[in-house]
């Protein structure tokens, strides 16, 4: 009888110790995540997408592919635009033909393989466009799974891929919950949006932000309290994609809807 009590006691103590150590570990992890400002870093890039303003013109996708030399006709892209059409009976149609590179010039929804879904415009309850790009997560799962250290998070929060060090195993492509990674058809290495790193480090805006006529895409410094984009993220109602994965995405959305995955 007493031995069972001792066993249970020891078990409880063990569990308590485990719990304490894991909390300590957790707080350490979040310290490294949020301690960027204290370490003297001046920049943490963040992105803001206003889905209310997006009209699905696809100029962002076109500009991105040309700027970053992603082969234009290959069906891969660093950023893309999705269309969601919800009907009155609750069915949701979604498409992104060629990633929205040529805009949405057809009222019908593209089902792939050359078939289209006719849409009765009078039965639409809501319809909108959602641009997608790399979330530059604070906890990037794509970086964790890289076996060779070819993808990493820079001090300014941008996740980059080392083209000369990547072995092309594709783990990161599978690990990304947002599906933003793909193989570059020319370099045969993992490729992804990096907020146009060559532009933001020169004081320019990313190509998609520059090309958007409606200011639906904005970039800002999350460590600068006076940054206008950061102000919007701090003071308005914004959401992120797939928060439940714990990746802490740094691309914020205005007007996100539950249909968006």
């Amino acid at each position, binding site marked *: 009888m007493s031995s069972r009590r001792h066993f249970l006691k020891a078990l409880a103590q063990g569990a308590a110790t485990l719990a304490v150590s894991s909390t300590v570990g957790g707080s350490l992890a979040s310290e490294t995540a949020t301690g960027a400002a204290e370490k003297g870093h001046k920049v943490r890039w963040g992105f803001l997408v206003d889905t209310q303003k997006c009209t699905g013109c696809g100029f962002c996708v076109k500009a991105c592919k040309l700027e970053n030399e992603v082969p234009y006709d290959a069906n891969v892209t660093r950023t893309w635009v999705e269309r969601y059409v919800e009907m009155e009976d609750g069915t949701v149609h979604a498409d992104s033909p060629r990633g929205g590179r040529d805009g949405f010039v057809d*009222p019908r929804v593209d089902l792939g393989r050359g078939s289209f879904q006719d849409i009765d415009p009078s039965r639409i309850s809501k319809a*909108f466009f959602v641009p997608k790009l790399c979330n530059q997560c604070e906890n990037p799962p794509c970086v964790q799974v890289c076996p060779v250290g070819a993808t990493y998070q820079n001090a300014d929060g941008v996740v980059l891929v*080392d083209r000369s060090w990547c072995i092309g195993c594709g783990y990161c492509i599978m690990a990304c919950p947002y599906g933003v990674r793909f193989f570059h058809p020319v370099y045969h290495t993992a490729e992804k949006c990096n907020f146009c790193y060559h532009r933001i480090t020169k004081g320019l805006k990313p190509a998609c932000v520059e090309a958007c006529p409606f200011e639906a895409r904005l970039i800002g410094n999350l460590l600068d309290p006076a940054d206008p984009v950061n102000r919007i993220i701090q003071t308005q109602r914004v959401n992120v994609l797939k928060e439940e994965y714990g990746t802490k995405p740094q691309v914020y959305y205005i007007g996100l809807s539950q249909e968006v995955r």
Partner: protein
Amino acid sequence: MHVLRPLWAVLALVLVILVLRTFVVPEDFGIGERGYMYGWHRASDPQYWQGISVKLRGREYCKQCHLAQFTQNGESPHRIIQCENCHGLAGQHPGAVPKLTVDRSRDLCLRCHERLAYPSSQRGEIRGVSGATHNQGVECAKCHKPHKPTLGEKPPIGGKT
């Protein structure tokens, strides 16, 4: 001690790998500022990405030479659209690339002006037509000047402009 032989073999293998590693792994490979979990990389790699050339130069760059067109377009509702969205990315223009190719296709205009009456999107507020029925096969610019899109004198369809 024959039982220790596998151990020596393993130790030798580890030693070989450690020696090989010093040749294969670049000198600047290490834990970056982002720590053990997310920071492993070659310290020189960010410079590669920073060194990529800028191709989309922005309307202020175009303005330096094409002031007249810039000013005219600046008075139209199309002022929000970057020059390079239709004219192609400037890149090395006017140096290495003397001429840019303008996209005059109907599909370019229809990116915004294909009428999609979406109730919850700004797209629904843009005036548009059905590309499938509206003067099919005719270039939009025959009637609508891109830099001054409001319809003025309307040239006859198919006639000379």
